């Protein structure tokens, strides 16, 4: 039933909506990857990241779908990428630079391990509260709780462990795009401005240094962003910046705040289709960054102030370096 409704909805949306979607995934196994590709493949053209500006500005009859994978988990390299390669589907992998260096589990994997053991967590350790803390406070709190309860994330698990830089370079050589996802997985709007700017800069330069090529884009950890931080990422040399705004991407979005629709491995085809169809309205879904439907007001405001907005809107007005990257 859900599948039928979702199919009808998506068929309608497919006819009326221009642009496309940027799918925001995290961890998938081979079968889930295949399923997601099958669902999207029926309605969308899979595109590479560098085709995105053109597809936004010059829409085609068939909408596009760009796959992005956040966090740089090892399973991205061992399960997702080989499957995508086999199916001929391009994707972007966003990696957390410092975590790849030290191979420590990301804070939310430790939190998940904690929650699995305790069932519930104390009030100061709920996810909603943790995501409002500056990174240093957050890490301190999670680490102390893990030490107190004798819990830690299982680094043997490919969905917890992170890729090595070697694997990242291999993905890049195989034609996948590599983006930066923060130096740490800090919610950047909770940091001091200076720390957030530094985090962005270090993450982008680290990716550039490791892959020996320009960093393709930047995705905000947890999706929380401000125009100032996004602009800083652009100035650091990435041509595109991604958020988690759950809507379709079209030419009304500037390249420095591209929306992405979040999907999960266990999502059924019906749910994927329905979510994609509903997202076309730009009104219904909640932003997973914790800001709910605030993006509706943001987009309204953006449309009102587009002529007054000093922020760049077209590739022509981007810094020369970024523009060249897109053109290349």
């Amino acid at each position, binding site marked *: 039933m859900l599948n039928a409704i979702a199919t009808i909805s998506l068929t309608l949306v497919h006819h009326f909506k221009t642009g496309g979607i940027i799918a925001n995934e995290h961890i998938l196994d081979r079968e889930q990857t295949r399923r997601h590709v099958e669902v999207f493949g029926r309605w969308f053209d899979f595109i590479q990241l560098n085709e995105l500006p053109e597809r936004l500005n010059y829409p085609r009859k068939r909408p596009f779908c760009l796959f992005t994978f956040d966090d740089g988990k090892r399973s991205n390299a061992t399960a997702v990428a080989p499957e995508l390669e086999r199916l001929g589907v391009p994707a972007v992998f966003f990696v957390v630079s410092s975590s790849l260096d030290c191979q420590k589990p990301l804070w939310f994997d430790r939190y998940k391990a904690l929650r699995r053991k305790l069932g519930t967590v104390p009030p100061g350790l*709920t996810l909603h509260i943790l995501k409002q803390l500056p990174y240093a406070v957050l890490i301190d709190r999670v680490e102390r709780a893990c030490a107190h309860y004798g819990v830690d994330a299982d680094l043997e698990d490919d969905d917890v462990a992170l890729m090595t830089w070697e694997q990242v370079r291999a993905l890049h050589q195989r034609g996948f795009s590599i983006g930066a996802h923060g130096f740490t997985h800090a919610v950047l709007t909770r*940091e001091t401005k200076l720390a957030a700017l530094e985090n962005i800069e270090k993450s982008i330069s680290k990716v550039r240094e490791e892959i020996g090529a320009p960093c393709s884009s930047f995705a905000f950890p947890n999706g929380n962003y401000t125009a100032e931080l996004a602009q800083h990422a652009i100035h650091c040399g990435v041509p595109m910046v991604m958020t988690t705004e759950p809507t379709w991407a079209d030419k009304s979005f500037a390249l420095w705040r591209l929306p992405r629709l979040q999907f999960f491995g266990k999502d059924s085809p019906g749910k994927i289709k329905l979510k994609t169809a509903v997202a076309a309205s730009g009104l219904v879904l909640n932003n997973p960054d914790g800001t709910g439907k605030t993006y509706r007001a943001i987009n309204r405001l953006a449309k009102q102030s587009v002529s007054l907005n000093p922020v760049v809107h077209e590739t022509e007005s981007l810094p020369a370096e970024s523009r060249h990257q897109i053109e290349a």
Partner: protein
Amino acid sequence: MQSSTGNISRVEILKRLRVAALIVGEPRGAELWALRSIFAGPCELHVVQALHYSAVSILKRARSQVKAHGLLKSFSRWMGKGLFGVREHKRTQQILDQLFGVSDLRGWWVRSGIVPTKVPHLNHIYSRAALEKIQPDILVRVSGGLLKRHIFSQAKLATLNIHHGQAPLIRGLSNIAWGILENRREWIGTTIHVIDEGIDTGTVLWRGAPQLAPGDSAASLYFRAHLEGVAALVRILEGYARSEAPPLWELPRRETSNYRSAFDLAAWLTFLILGRGRRARVLIERAIEC
């Protein structure tokens, strides 16, 4: 060898700083965070804990409010406080306690062995006597109302305040919430200033602001502003401990000073309609404007 001797002497110098922190009532998350940070710094921390905000009776306070603001405005404030203020304050305190991790902080408070000197209120003669006994180098007003001269003059070096708002641009109460309400982004922040006889008019030693972003609320901004403010306070205390007078904060010229007091009924209603800040333009527009 020389450097280790240097380190020892530095620690010794740092240890000499006597800090008396002034609080009112049982310390909650924000106060405990400040106390723990000061305690972890180069300080010998003493705490003076007042049991009440003020000795002035409710009737007398009401009369002076009417005299200062007029009957209508005063009535609106009382209504606002009665209908929303008390409940909202309780709610905010609960959120802040969670953000600050109050259970850990309370554990620290018990373990720290600090025995606060209890006084009826901060301007009470007993408070002065307690401070005379402590002989603090620095007094820090962590919470409480206005301090009178006989209290703030007890510090040998300075009496400091953590003001949640960018003083002297905005002075008074609930300044972060007022900044949200009046779309004044420049009001939102924290100031560390020297206490004088005015309300938040003393010499500014540090001023800063958290990042504003969509999804923030008055409580989350207060939380981050407090963290940044306390970190700055500790840096200033370290400066004093090294016998370095803190440099004065350079304020922009022609900065007009504003004063806001407690919310009245209309302010409370607007604040709640704005989702306690979440729907405020000053925060939403950060997503599209630098």
